[in-house]
């Protein structure tokens, strides 16, 4: 290898090494920039209300910077001349290598060239790139690692953002959550119980769309409340119109007085009772008897758990006694017709001294007994309902049992159409119809149709009577449909109220759980179209048409009212001038009269509000609405309060 080749080889190796070293340093610089960027973004995220996408964006930018640094550092190739100058500088070769390389590249010949190359080659042999550029953590890389470590530490620091921002974030999340549930619930209702009236369907669709809007759009609390209030008003009006029909009153009343399954027809009730009886055996197994049996079994179960060991004489005696007691219980169950296979198996296990199996079988028997008891109770309830069912059309109409009445009318129609009625039967039918005219008059045109039917029957005009009876049945059906729609509307209003509650109180949908009455079924109308449990809380004159009295569920203690100070606290000092002392003016509790109010004499409190009017108005309206719902406002003034906020809206 010539001296020049020797020099060039050394330079090439050094150039390659330097390129890697530059790439390594570039990575360090990029990493430092990225880490600092990430740290700043994280710090900003912890301290200021920056958008959430900032962190992933900063992360991506940081990684990109690091990679860009690596690429930028290693991008440039080093020429041999550059490498020579660099080594001259690093090794203090006094420009031997660079001069030799330059002179060798020139056309000059002679001794000087040889002397230079020899001298440079001698020095080049001492060049070791690895020693010259040992790979290690450069300073910039250490700083980068420090920045990353700080960032990691910063990750554990709790966020110190303003309460207002956090509240706003929570508000947005709660609005979305409420919207999602509102939309889901309303759509589910639309599928399960499709409304028959177009306006009801439209109202429910609007509600679902409002829910979607909450989910998709970023709405403020006041906007959401305004939209909800507006839709609630609309739906409320619609529900009010729907129930203005006086024909629905007896239906509603009847529904309130009966249970959940009150909507079932007599045939259906009989079918259910028969099924339960079949399961319960010979019918002797009443809920009380089964309850007693259960108590006895529980006692035996407790004794069994404390039973002494089988080897001791006392243990054997206890087992014998236990077996006897269990046998007695099994016999009683058999007599009642209840099947308790677990009990039989428990006795067998006890006799076989299999204690574990015995206890297990005893648990099984207890579970079976519990089920039987529930079935007996259910049957008892059904029997009570069946007993309450009207015996004829008049009673059914009187009791508000619309479905039963409709079935009775259908049967009458079929009898009339069949034309096989004897004189007695016809007379009986006529009597039944005429008797039903009076209670039927509560159901709008039903009474008229029945009256006409009765008249036609008396005149022997069976076809006309049939038509009248069919019209009455149709009218009843229409009323039931209206009731069902009203029920759907009420359920939607409940959902809206819950959404309002969630948004107003800045809580999630789940936190604003409906009361024990249950959502949608609360005030009562199950799928059967009759009020369910909790109907006793209904106001007589309002029915389901407006917000209920479940204000007890409204916990306003956490409500942040930017427009109001906490009650009883004002900024005004105690020692105000006499003309600034508030004077209470006693109002008169008479409709149309002046309302109780507090007025201030003298100058008004100066200053600029930093709360938006709409927000304050919406919050005030919400509070007023709550007060109205909770009957905190005298009835005489309720309309005045509503009018006031309606005027504000205008």
């Amino acid at each position, binding site marked *: 290898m010539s001296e020049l080749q020797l020099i060039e080889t050394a330079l090439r190796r050094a150039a390659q090494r330097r390129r890697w070293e530059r790439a390594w340093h570039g990575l360090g610089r990029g990493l430092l920039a990225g880490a600092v960027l990430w740290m700043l973004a994280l710090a900003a995220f912890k301290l200021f209300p920056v958008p959430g996408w900032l962190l992933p964006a900063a992360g991506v930018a940081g990684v990109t910077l690091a990679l860009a640094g690596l690429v930028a550092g290693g991008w440039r190739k080093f020429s041999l001349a550059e490498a020579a100058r660099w080594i001259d*500088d690093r090794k203090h070769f*006094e*420009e031997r290598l*660079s*001069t030799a390389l330059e*002179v060798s590249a020139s056309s000059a010949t002679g*001794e*000087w060239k040889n*002397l*230079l190359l020899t001298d440079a080659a001698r020095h080049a042999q001492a060049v070791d790139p690895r020693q010259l550029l040992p790979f290690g953590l450069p300073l910039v890389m250490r700083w980068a690692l420090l920045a990353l470590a700080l960032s990691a530490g910063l990750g554990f620091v709790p966020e110190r953002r303003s309460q207002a921002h956090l509240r706003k974030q929570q508000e947005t999340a709660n609005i979305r959550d409420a919207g999602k549930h509102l939309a889901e619930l309303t759509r589910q209702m639309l599928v399960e119980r499709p409304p028959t009236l177009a306006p009801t369907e439209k109202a429910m669709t609007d509600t679902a769309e409002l829910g979607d809007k909450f989910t998709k759009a970023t709405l403020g609390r006041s906007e959401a409340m305004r939209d909800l209030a507006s839709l609630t008003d609309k739906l409320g009006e619609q529900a009010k119109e729907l129930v203005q029909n006086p024909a629905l009153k007896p239906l509603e009343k009847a529904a309130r007085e009966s249970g959940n399954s009150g909507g079932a027809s007599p045939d259906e009730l009989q079918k259910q009772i028969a099924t339960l009886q079949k399961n319960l055996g010979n019918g002797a197994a009443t809920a009380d008897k089964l309850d007693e049996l259960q108590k006895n079994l529980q006692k035996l179960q407790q004794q069994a758990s404390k039973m002494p060991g089988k080897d001791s004489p006392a243990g054997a005696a206890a087992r014998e006694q236990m077996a006897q007691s269990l046998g007695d219980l099994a016999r009683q169950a058999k007599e009642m017709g209840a099947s308790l296979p677990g009990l039989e198996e428990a006795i067998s296990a006890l006799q076989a001294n299999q204690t574990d199996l015995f206890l297990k079988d005893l648990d099984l028997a207890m579970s079976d007994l519990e089920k039987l008891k529930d079935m007996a109770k259910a049957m008892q309830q059904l029997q009570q309902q069946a007993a309450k069912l009207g015996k004829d059309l008049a009673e059914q109409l009187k009791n508000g049992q619309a479905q039963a009445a409709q079935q009775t009318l259908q049967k009458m129609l079929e009898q009339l159409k069949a034309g096989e009625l004897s004189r007695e039967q016809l007379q009986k039918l006529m009597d039944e119809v005429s008797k039903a005219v009076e209670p039927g008059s509560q159901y709008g045109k039903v009474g008229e149709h029945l009256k006409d039917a009765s008249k036609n029957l008396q005149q022997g005009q069976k076809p006309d009577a049939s038509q009248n009876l069919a019209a009455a049945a149709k009218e009843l059906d229409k009323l039931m449909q209206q009731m069902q729609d009203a029920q759907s509307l009420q359920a939607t209003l409940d959902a809206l109220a819950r959404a309002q509650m969630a948004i107003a109180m800045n809580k999630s949908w789940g936190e604003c759980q409906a009361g024990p009455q249950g959502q949608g079924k609360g005030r009562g109308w199950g799928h059967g179209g009759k009020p369910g449990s909790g109907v006793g809380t209904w106001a007589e004159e309002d029915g389901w048409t407006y917000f209920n009295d479940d204000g007890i569920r409204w916990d306003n203690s956490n409500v942040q009212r930017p427009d109001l100070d906490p009650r009883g606290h004002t900024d005004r000092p105690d020692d105000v001038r006499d003309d600034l002392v508030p004077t209470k003016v006693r109002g008169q509790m008479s409709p149309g009269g002046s309302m109780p109010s507090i007025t201030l004499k003298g100058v008004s409190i100066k200053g600029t509000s930093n709360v938006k009017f709409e927000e304050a108005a919406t919050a005030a309206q919400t509070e007023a609405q709550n007060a109205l719902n909770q009957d905190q406002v005298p009835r005489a003034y309720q309309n005045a309060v509503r009018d006031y906020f309606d005027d504000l809206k205008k």
Partner: protein
Amino acid sequence: MSTEAQIASFRQTWQNLRAEIGKVMVGNDAIIEGTLTAILAGGHVLLEGVPGLGKTLLVRTLSEVLELSFNRIQFTPDLMPADILGTNFVVETPDGRREFQFQRGPIFAHIILADEINRATPKTQSAMLEAMQEKQVTAGGELRKLVEPFFVLGTQNPIDQEGTYPLPEAQLDRFFFKLLVGYPSAGELTEVLNRTTENVKVKPGKVLDGPSLIELQSLVRQVPVASHVKDYAVRLVLATHPKTETAAPIASQFLRFGSSPRGGQTLILAGKVRALTQGRFNVSFDDIQAVAAAALRHRLILNFEAEAEGITTDHIIAQVLKDVPKNAEAVRA
């Protein structure tokens, strides 16, 4: 003789010269080396220092170690150009005719000691200009070549002293180096006292004759210089040019005029001599930096601000050396 042998001979001669001068001179190594560097590069030297620091002794010793003719001109205010260059005399020839005959002045020698050069008037000082640059004089309407090798070794007292005339810039620029002679250290002073107050006479030996010196000068000029080293010298010179794009900030602030191209020539030539004396075959950045102060300090003209603040050209050169990077893109024309 091969180049390698010539280089070896150069180093040997350098060491011999140092040794012989060292027999007479005490200390002042930088001044001695600077003077020898200038001579080997074929340049003139201006030695500045207060009286009594051995300037004249150095030049005289130098003339003794070199087998070259030596003349000393003591510059005084009444010294006239003709006193330096020579003059025409009317002489009577054997046949009775009268004719002008040129009587050579002291300038006609290999080594000229221009002692206290700044005591002469500018008119007289300027008589040296042509001789120093062109190595010829024009006297009596006739051009006369000076002998080769030709060196002017000027000494001057600090210019703020009484009865001095600052050398014109044109003449200063013709000096290869300006060397500042400082006070000796305690040890050196003791040695000076020992040597000069006892009956000990030291006679330095002859080391180098004229032709050999010319050969060495030729050898110096062959030393290769890498382009980036030349570029560095160029950037150094350009950095001294105030109010230009390439100027160093300090130059723009404190200089009225920067170095002439002769400054660049000096840097390279002196760098070559230094490379050879250090056993190298190429000029390095360090060589350029080592000779920069001596080569440039008399070529930079300070402005009023610098003089008011007591800034010297040496300060400026040191700062320029810091400001100008060694490896950088070549300066475009």
